[in-house]
């Protein structure tokens, strides 16, 4: 019924993020955007284009090239009652701010005995596929998913890009939003009128009965394409978009694997000690008796992501590898 009444409009992922930021700033004076090149340049991925003109330099702040300084300033602002959105160009550069994120933002609530919470939102681009070299291409979101005290979300659809932000801003504690750089140009259908979405649960993007393709972020479109390919050979694949890497929606993972009895995890991070390992462990610990075949992981090759196009493609999870893994275990 609601499907009939819901209208949609086509929008890019980039525009969806921009709309989300603009709306948040329009609705709440405490919200401001801060980061490298977010103002005059319009953001390195052109997400914040036009926002400086609309909201002025007080609320769209270009920062020096010092991640530790401006993330730390964001934490201070949040503690002081503001609702900052801090943009870090890519997760690779966020390592300079790890101390602020891990030792401060994630810990203050705990170390102050519950007196100080940090309502901070940090947005970062992540992922490879655009030939920008190893120092701009890694997927380190799994590192942040390791840390108690922060919530890690990975919008993969235009709806999540548009509607996760207000929920993140209303969260009293730090939320890190990972936007896969390969998704900014992608288009999708945005339901109208929309509403904030939860940042707790995963979503089945395509239902299926033979194998669960468990993924998130930039690998979601690949998993959906793989599911389409698999359907042509009679394998019904379920695609589970995790959406939230911390805390993991283990219930949904277990429910899907419990129904299909086969699991393929697709993650652009590396296998070793990665989020894919955490998901596999969670299945092994809680649903091993549901497994009818070994778990398979399709991840990036354990190398720095190469610059050359053919080598970069070879290093990243691809649709064919997902299809092959699923077919291998489904038999």
């Amino acid at each position: 019924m609601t499907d009939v009444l819901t209208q949609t409009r086509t929008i890019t992922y980039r525009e969806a993020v921009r709309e989300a930021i603009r709306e948040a700033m329009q609705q709440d004076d405490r919200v401001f955007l801060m980061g490298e090149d977010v103002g005059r340049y319009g953001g390195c991925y052109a997400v914040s284009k036009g926002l400086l003109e609309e909201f002025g330099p007080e609320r769209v702040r270009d920062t020096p090239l010092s991640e530790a300084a401006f993330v730390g300033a964001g934490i201070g602002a949040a503690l002081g009652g503001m609702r900052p959105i801090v943009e870090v160009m890519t997760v690779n550069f966020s390592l300079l701010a790890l101390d602020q994120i891990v030792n401060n933002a994630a810990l203050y609530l705990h170390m102050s005995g519950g007196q100080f919470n940090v309502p901070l939102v940090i947005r970062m681009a992540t992922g490879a596929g655009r030939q920008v070299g190893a120092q701009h291409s890694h997927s380190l979101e799994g590192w942040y998913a390791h840390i108690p005290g922060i919530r890690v979300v990975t919008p993969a659809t235009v709806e999540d890009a548009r509607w996760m932000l207000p929920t993140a801003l209303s969260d009293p504690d730090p939320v890190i939003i990972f936007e896969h750089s390969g998704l900014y140009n992608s288009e999708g259908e945005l339901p109208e009128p929309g509403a904030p979405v939860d940042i707790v649960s995963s979503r089945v993007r395509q239902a299926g009965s033979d194998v669960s393709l468990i993924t998130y972020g930039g690998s979601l479109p690949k998993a959906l394409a793989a599911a389409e390919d698999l359907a042509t050979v009679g394998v019904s694949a379920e695609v589970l978009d995790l959406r939230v890497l911390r805390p993991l929606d283990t219930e949904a993972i277990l429910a899907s694997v419990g129904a299909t009895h086969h699991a393929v995890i697709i993650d652009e991070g590396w296998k070793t000690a990665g989020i894919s390992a955490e998901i596999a462990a969670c299945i092994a610990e809680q649903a091993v008796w549901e497994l009818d075949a070994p778990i398979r992981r399709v991840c990036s090759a354990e190398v720095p992501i190469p610059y050359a196009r053919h080598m970069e493609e070879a290093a990243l999870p691809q649709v064919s590898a997902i299809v092959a893994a699923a077919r291998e275990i489904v038999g």
Partner: protein
Amino acid sequence: MIDFVLPSLGADMDVAKLNCWLVKPGDTVHKGQIIAEVETDKAVLEVECWDEGVVEELVLAPGPTRLPVGTLLARIRPLEGAQPRPSPRVPTVEEAVTAQPTRPAPRHGVPSPPVRHLAHQLGVDTARVAGSGPAGEITREDVRRAAEPVIGREQRVKASPLARRLARETGVDLGIVPASGLAGLVTAKDVRAMEQVTPAPPDLPVETTEPEGRSETMRRAIARSMAHSKREIPHYYLANHIDLDRALRWLTAQNEERPISGRILPAALLLKATALALRGTPDLNGHWVDDGFRPSDAVHLGVAISLREGGLVAPAIHDADRLSLEEMMASLRDLVNRARSWRLRSSEMSDPTITVTNLGERGVETAFPVIIPPQVAIVGFGRVVDMPVAIDGQPAVHPVVHATLAGDHRVTDGHRGGLFLDALDRLLQEPEAL
């Protein structure tokens, strides 16, 4: 050096436990000597040696490990001048399928240092390992495989956790489930397929005493063999009434002159006639191996013997066509006694070339038996009943037995089967010639 490996003791068997050795290193053994006792799903079997020689080494100690067919059990040094047998006896399907990689194929050349290191760690003599590498090199995998029987590792069934759970819930024995999954993995689908073949009530109390446990595994072995037969073998059935008036009269007269212990039962007569009738239709006597029929020169007549605790075995009476009636009777008695005390010999279990089932003693008039793979025919006899028959146009009442033949249509057609039943009938009309 001759490798003494675990022989296949029946078409439906691929593992056995080594119960005990009856020889020790240094003993001289001769062909046909019983040198070990093993236990299969079906029976405790005495394993014969097929070579002359001196026991050099007993490679494996007795234990509860289920050993695959082909596992190296002992090494025998041939006697001076003795020739090792050129080839083993008639191979069964299972033997063909489960050829083990542990058989030695001594090779010149030195394995790589890591392989040598691994071999040293696992106690494997690389001179006895066949290489599977691109140029025949010995790989680490070869060494590991070679080490498996030596270190007595349990032959674990590779099954998915879900398959294990299902098997537990439904009482299916994972060891008998054909695997269809990744790298030989038994999957839930495989267990469900097996469950349909052998519905096992899950609520049965677990049987713990030895014979009951054995009969349970035997039940599963029968299930596997018979399911395989009905799945693979296109059976045709023929039946004939055979007048036993002359035969039984003759037998009664014969038995009057014998001591009670030496009396011959009609069953021996039927077995002898069956063995002789096969001479005219050798294509009913043999095995279906590797997609083809292998006739057997000898008639090793399998006799279906039902056991008191349930289940049945069908060991062979060797060279049944060459036995006198007295010898046939003695063989039958011996076989039944030993079968019921679980003491059959390996060769008896492994090489019947055709089987006879006699359900007459159960009061059944007609049997429609199922062929035991890899055999290609089975003969059934029902109860001997008094029936009206026409003799020279006049009605008379004679003892009559209903003889059936189930044949493998891949090997023979009904015409050949008909010739056999006809020959059987004629032979039984001249009992004194048997």
